[in-house]
């Protein structure tokens, strides 16, 4: 079976040489970032402009997709076991289709035809990247709606520092800090749940 990406157990998979692109994003390698743009910017520009998008839309989608890959590589240990090109182009295209959906427009070309030339595994992996990054964006957006104090308390409490130490530094009791943290997290959860309705 043609395998592509394995986030769960990368040690069992053969890492594709194109993993260098992900490494390039992680360490902000100018040459590799430039190479990504040189190779794929034209393809994404063409696809998006053929599908009711502008050059700016293409640039936005291209840039956001690269940041998604950076986040996945950094936080989810994404490892590439297939060539970079079909995987990356698919992410860009799916993001654009989602954007069109948000704008309540129908894409001009048939997305299924257009995207059918990649393996199922590549498709599933690209979908997972988009789904997880959209989820993270929702979490962070709703976090931004919390009051200043709640944001600060959660920032501190989720920093990995010992809670007792944080409470002492904040000049509050440990019990108070735990209570406020739970209240803030419960509020955040309610925002996220309300946003889905």
């Amino acid at each position, binding site marked *: 079976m043609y395998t592509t990406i394995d986030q769960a157990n990368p040690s069992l998979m053969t890492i594709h040489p194109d993993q260098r692109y992900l490494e390039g994003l992680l360490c902000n390698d100018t040459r590799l970032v430039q190479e990504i*743009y040189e190779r794929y910017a034209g393809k994404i520009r063409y696809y998006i402009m053929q599908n009711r998008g502008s050059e700016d839309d293409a640039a936005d989608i291209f840039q956001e997709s690269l940041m998604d890959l*950076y986040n996945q590589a950094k936080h989810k240990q994404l490892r590439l076991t297939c060539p970079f090109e079909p995987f990356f182009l698919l992410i860009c295209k799916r993001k654009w289709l989602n954007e069109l959906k948000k704008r309540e427009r129908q894409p001009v070309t048939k997305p299924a035809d257009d995207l059918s030339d990649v393996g199922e595994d590549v498709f599933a992996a690209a979908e997972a990247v988009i789904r997880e990054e959209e989820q*993270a964006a929702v979490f962070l957006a709703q976090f931004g709606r919390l009051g200043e104090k709640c944001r600060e308390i959660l920032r501190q409490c*989720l920093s990995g520092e010992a809670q007792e130490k944080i409470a002492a*530094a904040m000049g509050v009791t440990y019990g*108070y800090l735990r209570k406020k943290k*739970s209240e803030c997290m419960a509020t955040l959860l309610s925002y996220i749940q309300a946003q889905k309705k």
Partner: protein
Amino acid sequence: MAAYNNDDIIRYTEGEMLPEERSRFAAAMAADPSLAAAVEEYKLLKITLEQRLPPDAAADALRRQLTQQRAIHFKKNNRLSAVRKYLTGIAAAAVVLLAIVLTRQHRGKDLLALYGQVEMQVSAERGSNQDSLLQAAALYFNEHDYTKTLPLLHQYIAADSSNQAAWFYRGVASLRNGDAAGLPDLEKVSNGGSVFRYDAAFQIALWYAIQQQPAKAKEWLQKIPADAAIAGKASALRKELP
């Protein structure tokens, strides 16, 4: 899931339930996929915030790099030019408006009204006498009756000097009463590590701005980092200073 709420989900995930309650919750989760999904969502939320809330200098550097490459590999289109013209128009209008605002300010506009809004928030933890003092103080503070606020906060701090919130609100109340005696309270908070430290620095800067001492105001504004919650207001105040 109707029998359980978000507090329960958090307590279960954080291991704060007693064994019997935990078993009941686990059984309910096994029978109710929506409850199990809510628990998974909470776990995902927590880990996402743990990973993504800390400043990420590498991500910032990559964003700058991508913006540079974007300018090379994608052209600005007409739509953007139109938007830019529109934005230029708005910017010009904003400059005129700002000039008017600044002129007004030089004529004595009240900086306090613009930047001095502070609401005292307290959370009753133990229902003790100390909590009652804080709640009463908050009531007067939020009604801007600082003369009545101050004795309550004096009394609170005399009994418990560890609460940085009390020091912060006492400092602000003193300054709002026109009394510079609030400055040491705020300096103490600003030098500490509490969630009020940057708010305290901002309040000191605001005081000096109102007192027409821009150099001192700027000095305190510089203590506020760009990622602090109050940074936006601090930046706006900085622009108001000569």
